[in-house]
């Protein structure tokens, strides 16, 4: 408690702001904590699948089962379920995407990492652009450019007079709003999660150190909330990875679908 008491108000960066998301450079402007976290995520995912799939056997060992169940979850639960029998082709991409987002999201509650790279919108934007390029490319390959564009912009069974009014809406919602919502959803969830944890944790220190017994009790409650929200944040991290992959799959499904 004596250590807590020495933490005066001025020691605590309060209130939490967007400045808390810009961490100091580790080595030069190109290597930040986020860079290192992303490299680590890539290394962890490669190591995980290398280790679990090394000497794969027909009767899987425990570790092989673990790796295969991650892949099987995305292949059967997302790719085949949403895209159909062509879905298995996209399972490697979707699994990579799922693992990368899940690992980078879960950083937000891992001590010492504490923040997810996805709380900077640049990372979700790149991921959304990759999904955007993929669903457009597979759609154009399957239907040809003209037919693909017409399929997406001209709704079937609509009077010709209404088309000039409807085509701008279709264009914006299919080709512009999809990548935007994909990236903003992931970014906003991770950003808000980090900010909420900062508010309850740092706010707890402020309240406990305020010297008022009533406020100190509120501070302890605030820490309890921080713990509860950390568990909540873990659920959000995995859920957002799933939602991102699910929506990418449904865009691919829409792009390669036959006339509807």
């Amino acid at each position, binding site marked *: 408690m004596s250590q807590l008491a020495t933490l005066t108000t001025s020691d605590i960066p309060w209130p939490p702001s967007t400045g808390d998301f810009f961490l100091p450079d580790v080595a030069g402007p190109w290597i930040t904590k986020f860079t290192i976290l992303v490299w680590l995520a890539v290394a962890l995912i490669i190591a995980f699948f290398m280790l679990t799939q090394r000497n794969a056997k027909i009767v899987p060992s425990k570790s092989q089962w673990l790796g295969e169940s991650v892949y099987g979850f995305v292949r059967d639960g997302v790719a085949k379920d949403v895209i159909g029998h062509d879905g298995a082709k996209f399972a490697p991409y979707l699994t990579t995407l799922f693992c990368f987002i899940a690992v980078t999201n879960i950083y937000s509650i891992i001590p010492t990492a504490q923040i997810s790279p996805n709380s900077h919108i640049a990372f979700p934007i790149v991921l959304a652009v990759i999904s955007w390029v993929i669903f457009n490319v597979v759609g154009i390959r399957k239907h040809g450019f003209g037919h693909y564009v017409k399929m997406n912009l001209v709704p*079937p069974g*609509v009077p010709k007079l209404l088309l000039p*009014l*409807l085509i*701008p*809406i*279709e264009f*914006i*919602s299919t080709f512009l*709003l999809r990548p935007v919502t994909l990236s903003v959803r992931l970014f906003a969830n991770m950003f808000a999660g980090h900010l909420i944890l900062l508010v309850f944790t740092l706010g707890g220190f402020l309240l406990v150190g305020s010297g008022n017994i009533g406020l100190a009790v509120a501070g302890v409650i605030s820490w309890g909330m921080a713990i509860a929200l950390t568990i909540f944040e873990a659920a959000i991290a995995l859920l957002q990875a799933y939602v991102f992959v699910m929506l990418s799959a449904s865009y691919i499904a829409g792009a390669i679908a036959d006339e509807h």
Partner: protein
Amino acid sequence: MGWTALGYLIAGSGVWGAIGWGIDAYFGVPKHIGLLTGMILGMFLAVYLIVKRMGT
């Protein structure tokens, strides 16, 4: 599917609201009449599109 519908509603009122706002600014229409008409029209069109694309 819910996200698609929401996207249509945002895009609908956004696109036609923006066009209406442009008409307001260009012709000097008072009281944002173009913007409001555009947004309402866009909402109608979005609902129509949702019914056509995802109905039945």
